[in-house]
C-alpha cells in the first residue's frame, strides 16, 4: 500500500523512480538499519525465537494500530483505544467467567468496542466536536466504566482454551501474531481494492470535496471509529487471553504508542495519505527499540529519554530519505 505520501513532491514520476522507491519503502530501510544495529549490539537479537517474541509482543498494539490508521487516514485521531481495549477485555472476561461460550463472549466484547467507537464517531461527526476531544472524553469515560463493572477488581478464572488466541502457538508461531498479520493484509487489501477504502482516502484528503463528489462523508467518518473500536476490542480480548486475566487498568497509554507507530509508518496526521503496511513496520520498529534496550540492559530512564529521541530521529530520517525536509 502507499505507506508514504503518494508522490508529494514527485513531479516527473519517471525520473524519480529511485527516489520514489526509497520514499515508499524508506521505513523498511530504516527497519533494516535498526535490525542491523540491534544485531551488533546483542548477539541474542537476531534469533528466530526473538523475532517470534517480537511478533507476539507487538500484536496487541499492532491490532489497535490498524484501526488507528483508519482513523488517522480520515484526519481523525482516537485516544480511546486503550480504554476500549480494557473495557472489551473486561466484558469478555466477565462473560467467560459467567460461563458463556467463547465465541459468544468474544462477539459481544467486539460489539461493545464497536459500540463505543460508534458513540465517539457519532458525537464527533454530528456535533462536529474534534475527534481528539470526543475520543478523549471516551477514553476517560470508558476507563471509568471498565473500572466500575467489577469495582476495579480484575477478573480471574478464565477457561484454559480461551488462552489459545493470545498465548497459543501454531508450530512456533504465536497465534496473536498471525491474527495481526492477517488483519494487516485484509486491511491493506480493503484500502486498495474496495471503493470503501478509496473513499477513506478521499474523505481524509478533503472532506468537503469528497462530499461534493457524492461520497457519504459522515458515514465514512463514523465507520472508521467503529472499526477502530472493534479492533481495539479485539486487541483487548487478545491481551486478556494472553494474560489470562481481565484487567480494568490494562492498556492505559496504549493510544500514544499506537499513534506514534502509525505516524512512523508514514501515515499523515493531516489525513488522506498512508496505509497499514507502514503501520505494521512502525509497530515493529517501536517494539524493536524497546526489545534492544532490554537486551543490552539500558536502564529505564535512559530508555525513556532515548525512546523519544529515536522516534524523532526516525521521522527526520524518513523526511530526509524522501527529500522532503526542504519544505
Amino acid at each position: 500500500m502507499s505507506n508514504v505520501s503518494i508522490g508529494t513532491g514527485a513531479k516527473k514520476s519517471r525520473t524519480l523512480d529511485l527516489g520514489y522507491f526509497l520514499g515508499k519503502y524508506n521505513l523498511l530501510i530504516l527497519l533494516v538499519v535498526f535490525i542491523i544495529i540491534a544485531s551488533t549490539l546483542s548477539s541474542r537479537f537476531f534469533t528466530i525465537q526473538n523475532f517470534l517474541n517480537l511478533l507476539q509482543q507487538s500484536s496487541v498494539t499492532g491490532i489497535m494500530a490498524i484501526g488507528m490508521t483508519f482513523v488517522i487516514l480520515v484526519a481523525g485521531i482516537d485516544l480511546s483505544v486503550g480504554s476500549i481495549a480494557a473495557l472489551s477485555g473486561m466484558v469478555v472476561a466477565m462473560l467467560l467467567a459467567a460461563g458463556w461460550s467463547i465465541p459468544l463472549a468474544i462477539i459481544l466484547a467486539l460489539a461493545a468496542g464497536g459500540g463505543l467507537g460508534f458513540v465517539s464517531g457519532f458525537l464527533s461527526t454530528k456535533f462536529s466536536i474534534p475527534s481528539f476531544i470526543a475520543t478523549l472524553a471516551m477514553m476517560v469515560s470508558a476507563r471509568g466504566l471498565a473500572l466500575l463493572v467489577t469495582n476495579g477488581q480484575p477478573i480471574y478464572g478464565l477457561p484454559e482454551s480461551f488462552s489459545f488466541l493470545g498465548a497459543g502457538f501454531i508450530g512456533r508461531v504465536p497465534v496473536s501474531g498471525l491474527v495481526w498479520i492477517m488483519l494487516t493484509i485484509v486491511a491493506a487489501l480493503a484500502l486498495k481494492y474496495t471503493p470503501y477504502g478509496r473513499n477513506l482516502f478521499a474523505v481524509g484528503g478533503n472532506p468537503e470535496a469528497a462530499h461534493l463528489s457524492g461520497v457519504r462523508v459522515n458515514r465514512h467518518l463514523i465507520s472508521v471509529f467503529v472499526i477502530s473500536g472493534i479492533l481495539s476490542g479485539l486487541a483487548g480480548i487478545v491481551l486478556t487471553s494472553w494474560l489470562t486475566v481481565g484487567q480494568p487498568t490494562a492498556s492505559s497509554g496504549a493510544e500514544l504508542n499506537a499513534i506514534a507507530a502509525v505516524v512512523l509508518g508514514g501515515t499523515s496526521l493531516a489525513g488522506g495519505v498512508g496505509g497499514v503496511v507502514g503501520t505494521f513496520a512502525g509497530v515493529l520498529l517501536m517494539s524493536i527499540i524497546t526489545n534492544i534496550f532490554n537486551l543490552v540492559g539500558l536502564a529505564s530512564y535512559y530508555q525513556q529519554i532515548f525512546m523519544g529521541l529515536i522516534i524523532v530521529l526516525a521521522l527526520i530520517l524518513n523526511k530526509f530519505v524522501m527529500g522532503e525536509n526542504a519544505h
Partner: protein
Amino acid sequence: GAAKTAETNAPKDAPKQVVIGFSQVTLDSPFYVSLMDAAKAEAEAKGAKLVYVDAQNNIEKQNKDIQDLITKGINVLILNPSNPTAVAPSLAAAKQANIPVVTVDRPTDGKVATFVGRDNKKMGELAGKEAVLLLGGEGKAKGKIIELQGDAGGKVMMDRRDGFHLAVDKEPGIKVIQGPYCDYTRSKAVKAFQDLLQANPDVNLVYAHNDDMSLGALQVLEQNQLAGKVKIVGVDGLMEAIKAIPTGKYDATVLNDPQLLGKTVVDTALGVLDGKTYDAFIDAGTTLINKDNAAQYINDKLTFAASK
C-alpha cells in the same frame, strides 16, 4: 536445571557470574526506586550481576520485558508484578527456560519459589488501630475520617483499604468518608483534600494509603490553620512524614522499608539458585511508627525509614 541455564547463558570467557533479572513494576515511585537501589547494592556485594527492567506500571510491558530478560539470559528472576495473575505468561516462559522466580513486594497467583513481601492488609489494620486510638480508643472512638485512596483497581490499595476498615468499621462512633483515587500522588491529594475539607469541615482524622498523599493533606490543613488539630495517619514510613511526627503535625505511619525488601529478595534469589528452599511467604515485617518511637527512625540520608 538452574545450573545448566547459567552455563549456557554466561559468556564463555568471563568468570561465571550469576545474572539476576529484576522486573520492577515501576521506577516512577521513590519506594520502588529505593527497593531497586538496595537490591542493586546487595547484588554487587554478593558478586552477582543485576539487570533490571521497568514495566512502567504496564502489565503488557512487564510481560514483554520478562520475555526480553529471558532472551538476554538470566539465572534467576526477581519479579514485582503489576498484577498477580496477569504475569502468567512470564511465569510460564520462565518455567520453560528453567529460571526460578522470586516475587517481591506483591505476590503472584502462579507458583513461584517464594514471595518476599509484607502484608499490606496488616499494615492497613495497624493504621486503623492507631486511628481508633487517636480518636478515643476501642469502643469509645468517635469522629469523622477522610480516606484518600491509592490507585483505582490496585491490589495494594485494596489491602490497605480493607485492613484499615477491619479496624475502624467495628467502631460505631467513627464515620469514614472515602475520597477519590489520588494515585498515591501528592498533587492530586492536595486538590482532592481541599475539596473534601470544604465539604467536611468537621473532619477529625485523615488516613491516606501512603504518606505522600497524607503529606498533601497536611499541606492543606496547614493552609487552613488546622495542622495538629486534625490527626493524620499514613502508610510507608516516608522520612518526611516521620520527621513531622515530633512536631505534632503528623501522627502515625506504618513502616514499609524498601531497603530491607530489596536486600532480602536478592539474598533469597541467590539462595534459591543455591538450591535452598524457602517458605512460600517471607514476611519482611512492619511496625507502627508514632510519636513514641519516631525519633529512633529519623535518618536524613534515607527517603524511607529503615527497619530496626
